C-alpha cells in the first residue's frame, strides 16, 4: 500500500468513524497533512500525529504512517487524537495541574510524562475495539525509528501487552525481555498489576499518582529523561493562565494524596513536603526552552507576588459606597399615584395653609454625596536593594522586593505614579515613571546580586529632577555602611530637603546604631526611619507605611 491510499474520501470515512468511537459531540476541523518540521531529516523523528488543542486541529504524518506499514491504523490514530480533545486531558488546565503535581513527585523531570498518562487512558478506550491497529503503530515505530532500549518504553509497552492480552514480546522486543527482568525484577508482574489496577481507580487524580509512583522506577535520571514515542508528544503545552491556576489549586489533590499515602504508593519524604510556590514555579518552568522559560517564569512569579501584595493591602472599593439618603429635596406638588409617605405635611401646612389637604407637597430624600477629595498623592520613588544578601525573588521569596511591590501597588491604586530604582553594585536599573501595577510589578522583580552600593549620585540627580516626590529606600544594614561616608550623608540630607518625604525602610537588628549613623539626616523634617527586625515584617511594615503616607 502506498501514500495514495489516503484519499480524501478514505480520510473522511476514518474521521467519521473515529468521531463515532468517542460518542461525544466535538468541534474539530477534519485532519490535515502534517508538514515535516525538518523536511531533510528522516521522517522517523517527526510526530506521527498530534492535536493542537488551541486551534482544535488534528495533523497526521501520512508518509510516516505508510513507512510504519500501519496505513490501516489511520482510524485508530485519528480516534487517539480525538480522545485527547474529548476526554484526556480535554482541557489544558487539567494538563497544567498534572504537570505541577508531577514535578512535585518527580522533581527535576526533564520531559513531562503527562502525555504517556493520557495515551494510556486514550488507548484503553480506542483499544477496546482497535487494539491491533494500535499495536501495528507501536511495532511499526520500533521498526522505523529504531529507538534505543529504554526501560520506560519497555514497561510502557508491556502494559499494553497485558491490557490487550498479548503474549510478552508481542510489542516489546523479544530479546529485551530477559535483560529487563534482570535489571528490574518483577517488571512483567508490575506491568500486569498496573494494567489491572490503573483503569479501575475511581479518580483521575488517584490514577495519576499511581502512574507516577509506578513509572518513577523506570526513570533512571529524571533530569535527563527524554523519550520519543509514536503518539507520545501530541498534546499542546498549557499556557501561563493554566499553570497559574494549577499552582493555586493544590488543595484539590489533598484527598488523592491521602489515599495514595494510605495505599503506600508515595515516598513519604516526597509527598509530605509542603510545596513552596516559587519552588513549584521553578520546577515546572526549568525544562522549558530558554526564551519561553524566562517569560513563563517571570509571568508566574509576577502573579505570585501580586497575590502576596493583595494580602497586605486592603482592596480599595471600585466605586464609593452609597451613603444613606437623608437630605430632603426641594418641594414639589404631590399628585395622585405618588407615594403618600413622601408628603411633607409640616411644610405643606406652613406653605399651603387651609389648602394643605387638597394640594400637599412632597419631598424625596437623597444622599449627601461627598465631593471628590483631593488625594494629593505625590509621585513615589522606590529604591530597592537587591544585593546578594537577599535571594533572587524569582526563586525564593524576597521580602524587600515584596515591600517594594506593596508600596508600588498602594501608590498606583491611589493614582500616583511610581518610579523604581533597583540597585546593588554597579549600574542600577531605573524605570521610567510607571502608571500601572503590572508594569511596576514586573520591573520590581529585577535582581542584581553582589555587594551593596547605594546610588547616592542618582538620588541627588533624581531629587533635582522631581523635587516633590516621596522617596522610599528599602535596604538592610548595608545601607548604614554606605551612608556613613560624609559625602554620602550630605547627598542624602540634600535629597531629603528636596523631597516631599524621604523614608528609609531598613531591616536592622539594632535601631540604636542606625540612629547614631543617621543622626544628621534624622534632624531633617522630611526624613523618617522605619526599622523592621525580621525580614518577614517587611511586607506588613510596607503596608502600614503605605497607609500612613498615602491614605491621609
Amino acid at each position, binding site marked *: 500500500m502506498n501514500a495514495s491510499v489516503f484519499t480524501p474520501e478514505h480520510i473522511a470515512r476514518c474521521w467519521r468513524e473515529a468521531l463515532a468511537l468517542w460518542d461525544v459531540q466535538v468541534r474539530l476541523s477534519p485532519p490535515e497533512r502534517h508538514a515535516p518540521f525538518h523536511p531533510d531529516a528522516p521522517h522517523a523523528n517527526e510526530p506521527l500525529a498530534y492535536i493542537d488543542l488551541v486551534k482544535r486541529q488534528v495533523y497526521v504524518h501520512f508518509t510516516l504512517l505508510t513507512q510504519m506499514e500501519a496505513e490501516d491504523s489511520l482510524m485508530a490514530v485519528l480516534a487517539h487524537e480525538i480522545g485527547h480533545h474529548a476526554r484526556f486531558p480535554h482541557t489544558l488546565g487539567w494538563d497544567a495541574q498534572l504537570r505541577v503535581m508531577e514535578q512535585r513527585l518527580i*522533581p*527535576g523531570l526533564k520531559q513531562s510524562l503527562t502525555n504517556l498518562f493520557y495515551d494510556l487512558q486514550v488507548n484503553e478506550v480506542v483499544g477496546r475495539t482497535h487494539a491491533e491497529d494500535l499495536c501495528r503503530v507501536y511495532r511499526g515505530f520500533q521498526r522505523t525509528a529504531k529507538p534505543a532500549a529504554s526501560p520506560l518504553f519497555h514497561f510502557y509497552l508491556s502494559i499494553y501487552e*497485558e491490557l490487550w*492480552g498479548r503474549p510478552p514480546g508481542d510489542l516489546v522486543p523479544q530479546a529485551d525481555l530477559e535483560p529487563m527482568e534482570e535489571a*528490574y*525484577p*518483577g*517488571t*512483567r*508482574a*508490575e506491568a*500486569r*498489576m498496573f*494494567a*489491572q*489496577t490503573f*483503569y*479501575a481507580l*475511581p479518580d483521575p487524580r488517584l490514577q495519576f499518582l499511581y502512574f507516577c509512583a509506578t513509572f*518513577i*522506577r523506570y526513570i533512571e*535520571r*529524571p*533530569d535527563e529523561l527524554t523519550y520519543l514515542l509514536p503518539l507520545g508528544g501530541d498534546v499542546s503545552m498549557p499556557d501561563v493562565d493554566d499553570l497559574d491556576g494549577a499552582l493555586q489549586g493544590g488543595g484539590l489533590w489533598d484527598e488523592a494524596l491521602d489515599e495514595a499515602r494510605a495505599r503506600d504508593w508515595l*515516598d513519604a*519524604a*516526597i509527598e509530605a513536603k509542603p510545596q513552596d510556590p516559587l519552588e513549584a514555579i*521553578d520546577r515546572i518552568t*526549568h525544562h522549558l526552552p530558554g526564551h519561553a522559560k524566562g517569560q513563563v517564569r517571570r509571568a508566574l512569579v509576577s502573579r505570585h507576588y501580586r497575590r502576596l501584595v493583595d494580602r497586605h493591602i486592603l482592596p480599595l472599593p471600585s466605586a464609593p459606597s452609597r451613603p444613606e439618603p437623608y437630605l430632603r429635596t426641594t418641594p414639589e406638588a404631590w399628585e395622585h399615584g405618588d407615594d403618600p409617605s413622601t408628603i411633607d405635611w409640616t411644610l405643606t401646612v406652613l406653605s399651603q395653609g387651609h389648602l394643605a389637604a387638597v394640594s400637599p407637597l412632597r419631598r424625596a430624600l437623597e444622599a449627601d454625596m461627598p465631593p471628590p477629595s483631593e488625594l494629593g498623592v505625590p509621585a513615589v520613588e522606590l529604591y530597592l536593594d537587591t544585593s*546578594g544578601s537577599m*535571594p*533572587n525573588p524569582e*526563586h*525564593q521569596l524576597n521580602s524587600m522586593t515584596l515591600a517594594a511591590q506593596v508600596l508600588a501597588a498602594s501608590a498606583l491604586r491611589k493614582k500616583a505614579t511610581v518610579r523604581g530604582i533597583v540597585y546593588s553594585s554597579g549600574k542600577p536599573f531605573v524605570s521610567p515613571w510607571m502608571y500601572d501595577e503590572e508594569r511596576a510589578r514586573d520591573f520590581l522583580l529585577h535582581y542584581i*546580586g553582589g555587594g551593596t552600593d547605594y546610588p547616592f549620585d542618582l538620588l541627588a540627580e533624581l531629587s533635582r529632577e522631581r523635587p516633590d516626590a516621596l522617596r522610599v529606600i528599602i535596604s538592610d544594614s548595608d545601607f548604614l555602611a554606605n551612608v556613613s561616608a560624609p559625602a554620602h550623608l550630605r547627598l542624602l540630607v540634600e535629597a531629603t530637603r528636596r523631597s516631599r518625604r524621604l523614608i528609609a525602610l531598613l531591616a536592622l537588628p539594632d535601631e540604636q546604631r542606625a540612629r547614631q549613623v543617621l543622626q544628621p539626616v534624622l534632624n531633617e523634617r522630611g526624613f523618617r526611619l522605619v526599622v523592621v527586625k525580621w525580614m518577614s515584617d517587611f511586607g506588613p511594615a510596607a503596608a502600614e507605611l503605605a497607609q500612613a503616607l498615602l491614605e491621609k
Partner: protein
Amino acid sequence: MVFDIKHIQKQLGETPLVSPYSHDLAVAIVCDTFRLANLRPPSRQDWGDLEKRARTAALWREQVMMLAHVMTATSLRAATAATLRKNVDATTLLQHFFDEVEPLTAEMIRSNAFRQEEFLRKWVHAVDGQVKDESPRESAARLKQLDYRLALQEMSRAEKARKQEAERRARELQEAAVRATDARGWRE
C-alpha cells in the same frame, strides 16, 4: 453449554453494583442453581464447613453474595445449570472455587473489570465449563494472566527490588536538588 463472558459482563454492567441479597438468601440462590441441575446442594453443615475453611469469614460471605448476585443478574445461572455434570459434588466444587477466588473482595469484583472477569472465569473453570469463542488453552492462558493471587506473589519480588531502587533514587534526588540549587547560584 458455553459461557459468554463478555455478554455476562455486559449484563452485569446494566444491573446495580451492590448485591441486594443477604447471606442466607445468597446461599439459597446458589443451592437452587445446583437443584436446577438436578444435583444435591451443600447442606447447612457443608456451608458451615465452607465458612470455617475460609481465611476470612467476612470476605467469604462477600464472595457468596457476589456469586448469587452475578447468577441472578446474568445468564450465568442458566449456563451453570446446563453445564454442571451429574457426578459433581457441589461442596467440593464450591470449596475449589472459593479457594481460587480467595483474595477477591466484593469491591474488587464490582469496580475492576479484570477482577470481575477473573471471578467469572474461575467459576466457569470450577464448573468445568467452556468460554465462548475460546479454546481451553486460550482460556487457561487468560485465566493465568488474570490470576490476582499469582500476580500478588510475583509482585512481592518487584516490591523488594523497588525498595532498594527507591533508596537509590532518594539519594539521586538529593543530588539533583543540590545541582538545581547550584544552578540557581543562590543558597539558603
